[in-house]
């Protein structure tokens, strides 16, 4: 057993942390509240090779491990960086795999990977929700199939699996909304995904090739999102603890009251577990691939639950000030909730955990309601 980072991993982490300290002060996060995206900051990321970190060398990539991608995600989460790192990493690796693999259109996958690597365009992805709660998304086969897409307001193309085939869907026509106002100040937009026989819609793969590709990409996104949430929550806990040490009431620092101290301690405990689980999932991606999707799902569900709890406790520690826009803790609280929900939320994810752990797949899990079963 070894829970240390090697030297190159430490360097990677500090490179991004230092860049973010310089380029992504909380002031920038606040300036991006209305867009959820900073093109300037994203170009700093690209200068450090963020978009090619996880790509194979054949695309000029750096062929880094999931743990290394995770460290960048964690540093980004700490800084609340308004950049599409998770989407670019997961979509890029999916596209690169189909460019070299046995999909239907390796040429299109290759072109999309190259554009992403060069930084001229990027794809986001629609995260599959096999256990979506009824009424929270339109049906795949409905005429006006639309989905909320993370960084959909700035993505050039979207990867979408409809249960049969994996599509690469592009073009301004498809983006049905500008950036939508959301509680996490993200860059979510609505994309239209029906009429998939049109020219702006390419089948990249079908059948089991498509299923495996989207399952892996979804698991990688979730793993990296877990790292992001862990970083976010660790910073939120620091802010909350610092406030508890300094805020004086009844003549003493409030952190000396068990009513304040114990929830923070419990959050710290659960958060340590979330970091360990994210590490384990990243490690499993290479060492125990058969377990990877299940552990990545666990890491995401737990990070979502833990980041929600930690940011809530830290905000509450601030008393009324935590609710004031002027204080930074509310930025963390809102973003923790948003990133957890964009993929369906922790309760849906728990069902994925069960399905992946017990049956090995979350794609053909049993129907979730009687009415669905009849249909």
């Amino acid at each position: 057993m070894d829970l240390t980072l090697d030297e190159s991993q430490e360097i990677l982490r500090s490179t991004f942390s230092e860049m973010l300290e310089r380029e992504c002060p909380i002031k920038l996060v606040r300036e991006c509240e209305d867009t959820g995206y900073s093109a300037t900051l994203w170009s700093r990321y690209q200068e450090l090779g963020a978009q090619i970190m996880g790509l194979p060398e054949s695309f000029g990539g750096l062929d880094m491990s999931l743990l290394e991608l995770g460290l960048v995600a964690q540093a980004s989460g700490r800084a609340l960086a308004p950049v599409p790192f998770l989407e670019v990493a997961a979509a890029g690796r999916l596209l690169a795999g189909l460019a070299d693999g046995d999909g239907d259109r390796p040429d299109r996958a290759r072109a999309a990977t190259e554009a992403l690597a060069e930084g001229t365009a990027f794809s986001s992805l629609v995260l599959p929700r096999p256990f979506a709660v009824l009424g929270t998304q339109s049906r795949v086969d409905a005429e006006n199939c639309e989905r909320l897409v993370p960084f959909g307001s700035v993505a050039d193309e979207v990867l979408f699996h409809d249960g049969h085939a994996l599509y690469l869907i592009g073009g301004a026509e498809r983006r049905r909304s500008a950036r939508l106002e959301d509680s996490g100040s993200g860059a979510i937009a609505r994309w239209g995904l029906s009429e998939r026989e049109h020219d702006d819609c390419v089948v990249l793969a079908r059948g089991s090739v498509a299923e495996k590709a989207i399952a892996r990409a979804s698991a990688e996104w979730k793993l990296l999102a877990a790292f992001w949430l862990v970083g976010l929550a660790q910073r939120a806990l620091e802010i909350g603890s610092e406030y508890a040490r300094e805020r004086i009431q009844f003549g003493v620092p409030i952190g000396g009251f068990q009513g304040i101290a114990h929830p923070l301690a419990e959050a710290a405990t659960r958060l340590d577990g979330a970091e360990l689980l994210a590490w384990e999932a990243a490690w499993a991606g290479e060492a125990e691939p058969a377990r990877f999707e299940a552990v990545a799902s666990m890491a995401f569900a737990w990070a979502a639950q833990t980041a929600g709890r930690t940011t809530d406790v830290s905000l509450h520690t601030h008393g009324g000030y935590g609710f004031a826009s002027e204080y930074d803790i509310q930025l963390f609280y809102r973003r923790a909730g948003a990133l957890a929900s964009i993929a369906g939320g922790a309760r849906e994810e728990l069902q994925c955990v069960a399905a992946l752990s017990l049956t090995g797949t979350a794609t053909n899990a049993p129907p979730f309601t009687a009415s669905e079963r009849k249909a």
Partner: protein
Amino acid sequence: MDFHLGEKADEVRREIRAFLTEHFTEEERQRAVADGGGHDWDMYRKLAAEGWVSAGWPKEIGGGGRDPFEMLTLYWELCKAGFPWIGLLNSGFIGHTIMALGTEDQKKNLVPRIASGEIAFALGYSEPGAGSDVAAARTAATRDGDDWIIDGQKMWTTTAHVAQYIFMLTRTATLDRPHRGLTLFIVPTDAEGVDIQPVHTMGGERSNAVYLTKVRVPDSARVGEVDKGWAVVRFALGLEQAMGFADLQERFLEKASAWALEEQAGGERPFDDPRVREQLGQTAIHTEVARLLRHRSTWLSAEGMNLGAKGAMTKSFSASSYLEDAQAWTRIGGPAALLAEGQPGAIAEGSFEEAFRQTPVNSIYGGTVEILRSLIAEVELGLPKSR
């Protein structure tokens, strides 16, 4: 980064599973549950004969020289199998302590007898008036020539009714500076003035209350210096806190999972219900996190690094998450979840019923979660002392 415990630990897992298969039959397991005392001499001596009682001690003094990952695996497998292992756990620790702090005489006379399985110990720390505040112990040891006279009462002295000795915390100075006036003695359970009474619990475990009336022990029964017993106790509690219950959580998860996948009369499985899936996901995560926290504590020990409050985190998380899951499954399982193992109609082999009764104590003994959270807040978050 590597999450494998290593080949030596894998080997221990194979060995101890083989031991359990051979000696610890289903009949033995049920006997251990019915007895609830946490120790079985017959089983214990079989373990000792294969060197497991002294497995964690250094080789130089006749131990097995097993590393922390091997010991973790040993305890994990025994506990998960329902083996009555408390005597083993106490012996492992007390052997260590005597070797570190005991007199030459104690090392020569007691250590080999512990290793061979001849004798076992109970831990005598808690008292009716000293629970979480264990340093407030009032059981008094007073000098009388070359002897000491012990008077007082101990509580929660599990295995005292089967052990030959109690490793006992006593007060040898005034309460003014509670942590500095404590001394440890090895008290024979058959000494005159020792009265052991059972304390039965809703979890099915039998513990004890021990009354001490003018119990005379020689000075040679003292372990460590007079008034310096607190460090020894802290060390012992630290060991216990770094473990948690992930092994039991793993067994619980396996039972819940197996039940969820059982086809019912209509061909449906509990797993097909989203409420069951959701709780399975939660229980699987809790179990995995408890396991990882315990592995981290073990790794820190193996590397000789400072545990900080990481041990406290391990126990606090494991205790509270296991309790939460036990109660959650009871809420899901309806009346069938009330039924004990072996009753017709019991589900998950009665494990929901059993865990519902057994888990509340986990967040209490060996350091309540409140004590642990205060420690975490102080050590990990730099908050002021909150008690």
